[in-house]
């Protein structure tokens, strides 16, 4: 597989059966657009020196909303990684809450700004991301699902990761165990063909990550990650399998990483101008906009309104959070584990 833009095998154009309603499709699109503008705003805030670090989900929006749509946030578990910006919004996180994370302000719901943005645990849905050490969440997902299996719950655990993470030992160990125990896990890989600068052909010796699932005894599915319907179909099938106790599925969603790895990266150092130009055509916002208009689900004017609404929402959120304060120093000591003892403070002591 080469590192240039490609179009994977299955990309259905038709809506079928009891699939997503037009209304839901528009809603999902709305979330994608909001995500895009908020994402761009965070990038800008970084350039202004206010947001220290950000990993963009631009290019991943469709895959993320479509997957979430297939799940049940009242009971399912979401083990995300640092690029799941759109997924957070899709699960009901407010733009203000997102910005508090990026600007490290008081009131960040995930970690009270003790961690990077998108790290910590969500206050309202069972979504968490303990670290940005790559792939550690996969064995953890296996554990979460194990607990559900043992308790007889039909909740599903969706664990997200990128193509780079698929090389970690933890990924192999987790998939192996999940396959042995037939746990209700959905391995959702957003393959944007780059792990920072390392292209996919240096990351794996195979063309399709999804083919690895067979090695662990469960199905692997490859989908076009820019197509909401396709991703949603695959996710729904996997969720149904898992809830029925039939075991795990690996979904490989092919997407483009429209921006560099993070705000600290410069992808012109390792991607050609042509490649960057080519891949930007696989923009899910544009693709979905065109699809919705083509289907007659929205008009161009309505599309413009969706964009304008999103921009306005982002501005309000930015203004609000920009004026807010940072957490007090003393909150650094909040939520320490039971073992913490003040007497272990170095120097002074009460000798």
């Amino acid at each position: 597989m080469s590192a240039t833009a490609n179009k994977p095998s299955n990309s259905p154009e038709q809506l079928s059966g009891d699939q997503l309603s037009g209304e839901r499709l528009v809603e999902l699109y709305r979330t994608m657009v909001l995500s895009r503008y908020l994402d761009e705003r965070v990038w800008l805030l970084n350039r202004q020196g206010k947001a220290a670090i950000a990993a963009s989900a631009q290019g991943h929006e469709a895959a993320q909303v479509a997957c979430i749509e297939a799940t049940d946030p009242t009971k399912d578990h979401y083990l995300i990684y640092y690029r799941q910006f759109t997924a957070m919004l899709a699960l009901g996180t407010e733009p203000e809450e997102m910005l508090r994370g990026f600007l490290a302000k008081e009131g960040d719901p995930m970690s009270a700004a003790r961690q990077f943005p998108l790290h910590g645990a969500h206050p309202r849905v069972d979504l968490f991301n303990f670290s940005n050490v790559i792939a550690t969440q996969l064995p953890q997902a296996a554990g979460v699902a194990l607990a559900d299996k043992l308790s007889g719950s039909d909740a599903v655990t969706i664990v997200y990761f990128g193509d780079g993470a698929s090389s970690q030992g933890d990924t192999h160990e987790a998939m192996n165990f999940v396959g042995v125990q037939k746990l209700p896990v959905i391995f959702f890989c957003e393959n944007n063909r780059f792990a920072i600068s390392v292209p996919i052909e240096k990351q794996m010796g195979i063309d399709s990550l999804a083919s690895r699932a067979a090695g662990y005894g469960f199905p692997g599915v490859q989908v076009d990650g820019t197509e909401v319907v396709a991703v949603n179909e695959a996710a729904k099938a996997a969720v149904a399998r898992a809830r029925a106790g039939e075991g795990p599925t690996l979904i490989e969603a092919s997407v483009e990483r429209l921006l560099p790895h993070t705000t600290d990266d410069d992808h012109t150092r390792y991607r050609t101008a042509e490649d960057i130009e080519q891949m930007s055509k696989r923009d899910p916002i544009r693709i979905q906009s065109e699809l919705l208009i083509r289907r007659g689900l929205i008009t161009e004017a309505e599309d413009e309104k969706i964009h304008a609404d999103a921009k306005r929402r982002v501005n309000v959120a930015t203004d609000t959070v920009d004026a807010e304060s940072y957490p007090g120093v003393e909150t650094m000591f909040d939520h320490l584990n039971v073992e913490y003892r003040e007497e272990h403070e170095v120097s002074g002591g009460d000798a």
Partner: protein
Amino acid sequence: MPEKTVIEAVREAMQIEMRRDDTMIILGEDVGSRGGVFLATDGLIDEFGENRVIDTPLAESLICGVALGAAVNGLRPLAEIQFADFVWPAINQIVGEASKVRYGTNGVKTAPMTIRVPYGGGVRGGLYHSQSIEVLFAHTPGLSVVAPATPYDAKGLLATAIRTDDPVIVLEHKRTYRLVKGEVPDESYTIPIGKAEIKRPGTDMTIITYGLMLHYSLQAAEMAAANGIDVEVLDLRTLRPLDSGAIAESASRTGKALIVQEDTPAVSIGSEVSAIIGERCFFDLDGPILRVGPPELPPMPFSPIQEAAFMPSPEKILTAITKLAEI
């Protein structure tokens, strides 16, 4: 009162807690039908079934990652790492992830998990079945680390570890598993984490130690008594958090401190204990703080004479006691 070995006490603690709390599971390599390579979990799969006593694939990072995931989703997992020497792949999940769950999620998620790890040498274990691993964990904010040396302490501390709602590492010196036998009540009891215990009161100096070295230190203390030196032996029992109060009280009272450990001395538990004493007991010390430990080389050679030369022994401890007493 019945007498039990350390391994029997460990097994009993697990059995009692498994009966007490049906959200508790045990997982690890060979913990199921084999009953664990040290027979720590012998019989437990028969009583609690394979859904609660789980044989995992051979993958330490997986074991601890799964334990963590299960812990944040309502279970109370106890993971067994078969040998301390194999814990390294799991450091990421333990030190990197589990220790910071509560703190990093602002209290939304907590990880009530326990990891039991047989460690230590003097068993002809060579370089890969003899290691002492406590330092890395004892250094990690967010972890508790206990190291019981007696059957009574092993049962009580393991019970507390299991009931603690944050990650606890339980280090069991494998040489003590069958070597040490003592009184252990049949009923359930707990010993608090973070409390050292004076195993032998004395007046001339304090030995501060843990693990197998507790027993060697007690033997050395008896030999020293015959020479008119009255040695107090303080068993740390918990390595994080260290019981600085007990350490300081004893060292101040006797005026001389000797730290005895099996782990190599550079940057070790002994280093930290020494710093605590130096900070808190300066005006009460009548001599330098000495340490007994092995030489600085990978623990430990397989060949018997080399292993014996590496390991501290009651005789070597007695030499140090005598030296410190004379100062």
